[in-house]
């Protein structure tokens, strides 16, 4: 033989060691450990994996973990393991990747708008029979229609609303006073928005703007959200950017072109907003610093802003045009397909736990997200909350004008198409009409295979 036996053994041992080390690393790391012995050594404990995003400021990670541990103390045989996967966009990608890679989480929180894509990629289960088993119509009917609307695909329910939001305006009451505006009346329509913003713009001695009138987020992932509101405010009969079945988009209606032009004008013509693509993440911090008189942002940032603002601030409806309009947003619970019935039921237990009226009310208070259930607003904690922080009621009041944000099949792609073309118009590469026409053409091309 060409090697001494001892050397061959050594080599073999080395290879085995490496291979097993690799296996241990690989095996021990996969999160789908499934079951584990509970601490008192009794029945097997089911460990559920849950992916969740964080899109707003505040200690949401701690809140989710508290939710999970509260659930465990009431249900000792089930452990929910929350896994933070970035912001909404990142989470969408992570979930898809995990599903493609056959290591999906058991349940997850994702955008309500993802439901068509998730259904068409066969990633989630319909929840109707779980609802029938535990909850029933009473449970579902308690959810506010504006939020429950976007859980349906082909007549079945595929998700349960949890942390939902809508877009409102926050305004700096002190700045209003300074500019000679009534601090208790926020702008109600587009004309007032322009007029108030122009008054709120403040410049220093050198002519540099130190406070802008209004701030509106325009980057990918945020632009289509706020634009949904503008579309609803301006459309002929309250049409949205898309059809209810998620198969068609209506980007380039004359009313939408008008709305886009209005936003461009805010920057170029009226100069009440900084040029370029205003960033979602910058707005709350800048608002708190007094850099903006008014910002459009999610109600989910209410807790954050009220905690950190050093001035009196107010909230208001998104200023309307032909009517009031606002987009809904935020995340729903989904249960992944392919897990055992036992795990589905365990996941459902957690979802029911997290969406009890009191817990949703508490979540509302802790974060500023809007509780999606009507009975949450009857709880005493909610009533006390509104007493202490009246600004919070605005979001709830606006719900009657709220409609789902841009939701279609192949969501990620359609969002990107809209956002790219929207930005092209904002930075002036295309006119408003050119941009929306192009977006419409590209989006229709992508949606063709779902017709």
């Amino acid at each position, binding site marked *: 033989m060409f090697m001494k036996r001892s050397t061959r053994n050594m080599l073999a041992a080395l290879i085995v060691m490496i291979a097993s080390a690799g296996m241990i690393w690989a095996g021990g790391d996969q999160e789908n450990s499934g079951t584990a012995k509970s601490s008192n050594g009794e029945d097997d404990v089911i460990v559920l994996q849950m992916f969740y995003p964080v899109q707003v400021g505040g200690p949401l990670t701690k809140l989710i973990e508290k939710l999970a541990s509260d659930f465990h103390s009431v249900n000792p045989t089930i452990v929910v393991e929350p896994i933070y996967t970035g912001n909404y966009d990142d989470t969408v990608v992570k979930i898809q990747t995990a599903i493609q890679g056959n290591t999906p989480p058991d349940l997850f929180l994702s955008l309500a708008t993802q439901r068509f894509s998730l259904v068409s990629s066969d990633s989630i289960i319909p929840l109707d029979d779980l609802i029938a088993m535990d909850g029933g119509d009473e449970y579902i009917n308690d959810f506010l229609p504006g939020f429950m609307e976007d859980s349906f695909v082909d007549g079945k329910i595929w998700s349960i609303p949890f942390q939902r939001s809508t877009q409102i305006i926050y305004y700096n009451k002190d700045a209003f006073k300074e500019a000679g505006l009534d601090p208790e009346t926020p702008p109600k329509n587009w004309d007032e928005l322009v007029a108030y913003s122009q008054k709120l713009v403040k410049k220093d001695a050198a002519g540099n703007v130190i406070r802008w009138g209004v701030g509106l987020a325009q980057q*990918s992932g945020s632009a289509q959200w706020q634009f949904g509101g503008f579309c609803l405010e301006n459309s002929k009969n309250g049409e949205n950017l898309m059809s209810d079945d998620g198969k068609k988009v209506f980007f380039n209606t004359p009313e939408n072109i008008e709305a886009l032009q209005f936003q461009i004008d805010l920057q170029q013509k009226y100069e009440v907003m900084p040029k370029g693509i205003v960033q979602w993440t*910058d707005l709350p911090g800048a608002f708190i610093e007094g*850099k903006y008189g008014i910002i459009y942002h999610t109600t989910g940032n209410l807790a954050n802003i009220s905690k950190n603002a050093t001035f009196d601030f107010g909230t208001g409806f998104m200023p309307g045009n032909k009517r009031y309009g606002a987009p809904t947003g935020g995340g729903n619970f989904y249960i992944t397909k392919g897990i055992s019935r036992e795990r589905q039921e365990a996941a459902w237990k957690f979802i029911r736990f997290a969406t009890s009226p009191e817990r949703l009310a508490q979540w509302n208070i802790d974060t500023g997200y809007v509780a999606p259930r009507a009975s949450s607003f009857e709880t005493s904690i909610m009533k006390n909350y509104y007493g202490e922080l009246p600004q919070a009621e605005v979001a709830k009041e606006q719900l009657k004008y709220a409609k789902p944000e841009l939701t279609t099949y192949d969501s990620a792609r359609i969002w990107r198409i809209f956002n790219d073309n929207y930005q*092209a118009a904002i930075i002036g590469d295309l006119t408003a009409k050119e941009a929306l026409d192009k977006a419409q053409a590209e989006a229709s091309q992508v949606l063709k295979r779902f017709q």
Partner: protein
Amino acid sequence: MAVFSVYSFPKKDQLVKNRALTSQQTKKRKQSWKRDGIACLLLAPSLIFLTMFTLIPIVKSFYLSLMDLQLGMKKPVFIGLDNYTYLFSDPLFWKVMGNTVLFSLLTVIPSMVLGLALALLLNMRHKLTGLFRVSFFSPVVMPMIAVASIWMFIYMPDAGLLDQLLKSFGLPGQIFLQRSDTVLPALSVVYNWKEAGFLMIFFLSGLQNISTEMYEAARIDGARKFTIFWKLTFPLLMPTTIFVSTIALTDSFKLVDHIAMMTEGMPNNSSTTLLYFIYQNGFTYFNQGIASTLTVILLIIMLIAASLQFFTADSRIHYN
């Protein structure tokens, strides 16, 4: 030049040839079979992983580029060259290609020039060499993600470092990352900041390889510094330069962390380069057919770039 010759092929006469056999040659033949066997065994681990993760994926990309495989489809569907015709008629594809070429130009040349200049500086062995070394090489040991996040804040409008600086000179603020005409140059500054130090090292190695006797001779002959550089240093550095340009070019194609962190392709895909576009199509839209087609295109580009390097190398290298 030693580094470059790492890439030279083995000579023909090192290979075993077939001839008529004597008994001694038969014994040698048997030994050579044994040798082949041992060699195979030694190479096996490397070759297995190479095949699995470099060679087969290349073939797989070609295969999938002829298929339609999108989100929600269970099996790929053969569509021939449709992916290619779709891409070639898509203005977005050409925009991405333009961005890729522009970005490579904005990074390869400046980072090489800077790298060479910095290497010359470091080669001078002055008391300040320590400062220079730390200053220029620090960015190299930082991950691109970290570099990108620092520069993202530097470029932030109004609050960022750059705007603070501009304001202190009375200049207006900027929005470099949000304009389609300035986003790629702004990103290339970030990239060059990191890459120049890395290339500097290779140039330094090349410089230190040039024997000092040559310099002495030139100085005795009374040549000026500039002439020394142009007629002596630069030509002798040619192998290094070609090697460095390979690295710089390959890196400009394969490093997209800064795009992922700072702009995600915005505004309106003005900062999307080819690899990032592959990432978007493959992992955001989950369209494997198109992503594979783009991969094939990228592979072809890199092959062309590599062959160009070699043809220039062959004609340009000369030794002492």
